């Protein structure tokens, strides 16, 4: 069993065996979206107009919920030290944990998004673009979020602090994610936005693990 897959397998198993991560993320995602019609009113074309944005903002907040515990549980039980002392680069360890986090939260969000699109009365032919945009965007959220999760290790009130640190950095993903959906809704081609989302994902893939490893290493010093 290759060490990278061993970490991914363990973290995914932990996420599903304790059952909280995925269910909690999806439950929050649904509740957050349901609040908007209650707040804004059930008027169909108003909901359709803001649908893409609401689903994206809710997905962004939901993917951030489980981020705080990305390193926290290992930090508390001493496992993070052993992971840092594993005979492999810390960046690869971080990448494995981020992949597990994405499988447990990002992926389910993208899969569940169409259902919430219905709630927001967005036209069904937009759903493929919505799911594609989320599939391209959520990895970036996990990668940048991992940096924040590493930085708050050992800090007081880590959860709230994590939101303040990473949400400003999530704005580019939100802007291009929503623009892809809105372009599709207006019958225009969402290719430009999706390409930029993909570019951001690759950039985050290159820089995220490296910065998150630096954050974890200084937390373990």
């Amino acid at each position, binding site marked *: 069993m290759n060490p990278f897959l061993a970490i991914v397998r363990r973290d995914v198993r932990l996420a599903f065996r304790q059952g909280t991560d995925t269910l909690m993320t999806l439950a929050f995602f649904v509740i957050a979206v349901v609040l908007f019609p209650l707040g804004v009113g059930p008027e169909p074309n108003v909901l359709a107009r803001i649908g893409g944005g609401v689903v994206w903002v809710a997905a962004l907040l939901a993917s951030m919920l489980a981020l705080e515990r990305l390193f926290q549980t290992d930090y508390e039980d001493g496992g993070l030290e052993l992971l840092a002392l594993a005979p492999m680069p810390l960046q690869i360890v971080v990448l494995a944990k981020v992949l597990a986090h994405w499988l447990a939260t990002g992926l389910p969000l993208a899969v569940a998004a169409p259902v919430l699109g219905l709630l927001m009365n967005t036209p069904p032919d937009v759903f493929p673009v919505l799911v594609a945009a989320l599939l391209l965007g959520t990895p970036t959220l996990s990668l940048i979020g991992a940096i924040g999760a590493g*930085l*708050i290790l050992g*800090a007081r009130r880590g959860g709230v602090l994590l939101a303040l640190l990473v949400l400003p950095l999530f*704005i*580019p993903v939100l802007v291009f994610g929503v623009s892809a959906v809105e372009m599709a809704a207006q019958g225009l081609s969402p290719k430009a936005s999706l390409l930029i989302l993909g570019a951001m994902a690759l950039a985050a893939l290159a820089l995220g693990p490296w*910065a998150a490893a630096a954050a974890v290493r200084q937390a373990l010093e």
Partner: protein
Amino acid sequence: MKRLDWFANPARFLRLARAVQPWATGIALTAAAAGLYLGLFASPPDYQQGESVRIMYVHVPAAWMALFCYTALAVASAVALIWKHPLADLAARATAPVGAAFTFLALLTGSLWGKPMWGTWWVWDARLTSVLVLLFLYLGYIALNGAFDDPARGAKASAVLALVGFVNVPIVKFSVDWWNTLHQPASVLRAGGPAIHESMFAPLLLMALAFKAYFVWVLLIRIRAEIAAGKIRAARLRASGDAAP
């Protein structure tokens, strides 16, 4: 240069600070006086906006300082992480609140300028929105810097954040501009502000110089305060002598 013994004799820095301090104060006050005189009295009102354009002489320099301070914060953080010099940690910690103050000022004066020009207190103009995001980056830095019991830990964590934030500033700016053009109703007065008439240039530069000198002036005060706080912590630790392993 280890963190501990550097606190014992930061003499070299204190000598430099004492030498620079009066110059910074002098330049700040004279440049501000000249800038205010030119800005408020000697320069013409704008043909479109009339007198309200004078707000520009505070708004634009404040926005410049907001970005300048964040760059200074990122540079100090990089030096602190790479060369591990304690002075860089202190400089970064001292810069953040001043930068946040300038960012807040840029937003406030922007809103006060926007009211007469666009009729509302807040317009989702691309630049104002980017400055708002910059304010959150500052608040994130300050919160993380103070979230640890051990100041050295807070300094290191926030230094990493400052660098990550600095890399993201252009990306956020690009995405906000794109978002702005996406939702920009064509009719709104181009938010580029008035064409800069050369007689307006002088007060603008003078105020910018005044703000920079003010920044150096307050920065030196804050760093000296941090040094004293460091010495107190070091003395208290030596006195107790049984800190955690």
